[in-house]
């Protein structure tokens, strides 16, 4: 197997420890845990009582319209990519040489479930026209690519097997 060297030029993250890389890294070094008890009503009927949810809700980091149009997985991807791009110095580069790859365990599963409930409860007319762009697994890559105007292999997605931990990785 031929090994190719790559250079990481920018980092971005939104995690159970923080809404950016610095907070996340500080939390890791301090030995903090991002796992919290689930206190919401919906969680009272399921056997699992804890989860590692993001520390900062996307609604605190994005415009309201973006929140409406993007699945949670896409929100996370965009938030991390914006930090990474800024960390890299927001470089001016040839868009035809700019590609986006994002790994996602499932994609927009919350959108799929919500819209299925709307379909059953209120009918097809009220299902969001944004459903497919929100639920597709390559949605995070597609939205990052649109924002950065990446024209080289934009919506790439590879599956990320999550065993014992939740993780999404992106590479621009």
């Amino acid at each position, binding site marked *: 197997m031929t090994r190719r060297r790559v250079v990481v030029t920018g980092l971005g993250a939104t995690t159970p420890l923080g809404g950016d890389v610095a907070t996340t890294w500080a939390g890791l070094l301090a030995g903090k845990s991002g796992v919290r008890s689930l206190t919401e009503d919906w969680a009272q009927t399921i056997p699992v009582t804890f989860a590692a949810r993001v520390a900062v809700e996307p609604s605190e980091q994005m*415009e309201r*319209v973006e929140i409406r149009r993007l699945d949670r997985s896409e929100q996370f991807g965009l938030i991390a990519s914006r930090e990474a791009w800024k960390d890299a110095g927001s470089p001016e580069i040839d868009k035809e040489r700019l590609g986006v790859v994002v790994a996602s365990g499932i994609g927009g599963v919350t959108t799929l479930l919500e819209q299925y409930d709307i379909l059953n409860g209120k009918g097809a*007319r009220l299902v*969001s026209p944004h459903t497919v*762009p929100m639920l597709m697994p390559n949605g995070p890559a597609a939205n990052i690519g649109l924002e950065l105007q990446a024209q080289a292999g934009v919506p790439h997605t590879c599956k990320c097997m999550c065993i014992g931990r939740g993780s999404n990785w992106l590479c621009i």
Partner: protein
Amino acid sequence: MALAQADVLAGLKEIVEEVAGIPAASVELDKNFTDDLDVDSLSMVEVVVAAEERFGVKIPDESVTDLVTVGDAVNFIVNASK
């Protein structure tokens, strides 16, 4: 009873702001949804469905392409409410 044009315009302003993030003050009768307000096709579908819900009228899919300006939409809704 027919809806008043001013009431429909006020309602549409709120809907467009909610759906597309366009400031309500920018949503005027002569504004083109696509060229002036930058409302994309998917958001336009949301606007139409929200308007149907809010004003209690039916806007057939084949009529949506005729709603080029905010005024077109307001007039359609006012007429449909008669």
